[in-house]
């Protein structure tokens, strides 16, 4: 009934015990015996056993001492200590230093010992399986990291070259020379680039552990505005920051959240609006920061308000990816933040977020 290839090493200075053990269990396990710790070590050097039983009282060295001596060299086998009498000191030592799985008194009961060995073997399997899984996961994780790095470099670099060529075409006045082909290439490239950026953000938000540091909103907000108005400077920003308290938070995620909201506020303006405006208010308090971002853009339909934070939700009128606000929500979840939205179609939208100050 047991797996025949469970290898058990039993070390005892009494030959009779070794014989009795063999007689009882040789049909269930592959048994190796040793008359001393030194002999036992020799077996370990040659055979990979899964369970070791050792007698506590042996001349020269005790069972616990033996187990202690092999913790670094043979960490994997599961250890069972056998002892002829209840020795409190040995018991304490076994628990504290020997990394011992079971403590069994002699004379042993065959069934009890058999069950212990069986359980020990299961523990051994679980230990090895876990280690293999961890190694596998680490490998997958490494590959994923490399993949993400290659997305941010190798995959994006040629796309950005193509975008550079389109710019050059514009500068040379050739943009309208082939009907709308150049503008189509441009919008395709921009869309692809946007997806690459969102994919990276989503991945990093999911993976990276929160790292809190001092956040200076006076510096952060203008920096983000500059970044997102890089290629479109038509929108006027009014920024009002009230920060008297030190604020500690996850700068990476706060940048992702505000960046997406600012970029949306710019992107979803009314096409023929001549006075495109975005107001940003930041109020830093001891316990949290409140940030509101208000635009006078196209607004969001009432029936859409509940869905805008779901992945890949897109309304018919806009050209979004359905990722931006989903990422905002995911990032806020990671740092225990909250978001609320109110909107009036054709009037504008206000997003209010609250992020705890973690100090």
């Amino acid at each position, binding site marked *: 009934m047991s797996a025949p290839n469970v290898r058990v090493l039993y070390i005892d200075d009494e030959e009779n015990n070794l014989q009795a053990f063999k007689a009882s269990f040789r049909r269930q396990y592959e048994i190796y015996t040793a008359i001393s710790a030194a002999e036992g070590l020799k077996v370990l050097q040659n055979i990979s056993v899964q369970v070791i039983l050792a007698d506590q009282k042996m001349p020269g060295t005790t069972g616990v001492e033996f187990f202690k001596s092999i913790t670094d060299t043979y960490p994997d086998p599961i250890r069972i200590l056998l002892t002829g009498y209840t020795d409190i000191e040995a018991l304490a030592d076994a628990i504290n230093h020997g990394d011992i799985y079971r403590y069994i008194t002699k004379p042993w009961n065959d069934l009890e010992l058999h069950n212990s060995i069986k359980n020990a073997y299961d523990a051994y399997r679980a230990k090895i399986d876990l280690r293999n899984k961890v190694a596998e996961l680490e490998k997958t994780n490494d590959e994923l990291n490399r993949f993400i790095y290659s997305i*941010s*470099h190798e995959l994006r670099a040629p796309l950005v070259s193509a975008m550079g060529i389109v710019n050059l075409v514009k500068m040379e006045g050739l943009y309208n020379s082939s009907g709308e082909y150049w503008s189509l290439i441009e919008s395709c490239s921009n869309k692809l680039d946007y997806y690459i950026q969102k994919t990276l953000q989503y991945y990093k938000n999911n993976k990276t552990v929160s790292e809190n540091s001092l956040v200076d909103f006076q510096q952060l907000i203008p920096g983000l505005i500059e970044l997102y108005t890089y290629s479109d400077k038509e929108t006027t920003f009014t920024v009002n920051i009230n920060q008297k308290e030190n604020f500690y938070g996850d700068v*990476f995620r706060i940048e992702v959240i505000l960046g997406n909201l600012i970029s949306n506020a710019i992107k979803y303006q009314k096409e023929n609006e001549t006075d495109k405006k975005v107001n940003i208010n930041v109020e830093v308090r001891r316990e949290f920061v409140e940030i509101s971002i208000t635009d006078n853009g196209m607004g969001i339909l009432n029936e859409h308000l509940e869905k805008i934070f779901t992945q890949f939700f897109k309304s018919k009128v806009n050209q979004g990816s359905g990722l931006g606000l989903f990422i905002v929500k995911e990032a806020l979840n990671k740092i225990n933040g909250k978001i609320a939205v109110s909107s009036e179609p054709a009037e504008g939208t206000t997003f209010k977020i609250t992020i705890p100050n973690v100090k």
Partner: protein
Amino acid sequence: MSNSPKTVLLIDDNVVDLKINSKIIQLSNLFDEIVACQSGEEGLNYLHKALNHGDKLPDLILLDIQMPDMDGFEFLEIYKTLPKRLMEVCQIAMLSSTLDFGDIKKAEASLYVIKLLRKPLLIKELEGLL
């Protein structure tokens, strides 16, 4: 300084980008001479030659980050050891398509880099540096 002819040194392993950016800078009329190098090493050779022969030193270096053999940051390590008179006239901006958080922070932290520009290069960003 505004009257003397201006030189920009481009360092980028990507030949296509080198071509595009040279052309953009040429159309911008911001520089009189454009020197294009395909590696950090080639860039350093150019600087050494200019320093030794008393030639015109570049006013600006546009440095890519991701390059084989010697990347932008390794280039900066060697650049630091060059004669001071080069640094007195020459500024460095990094020019990259990177979205890697580490790369961006490293470029921003570097003492020798005045700005990290994103590809594709835009003339108004270049003007902002001068």
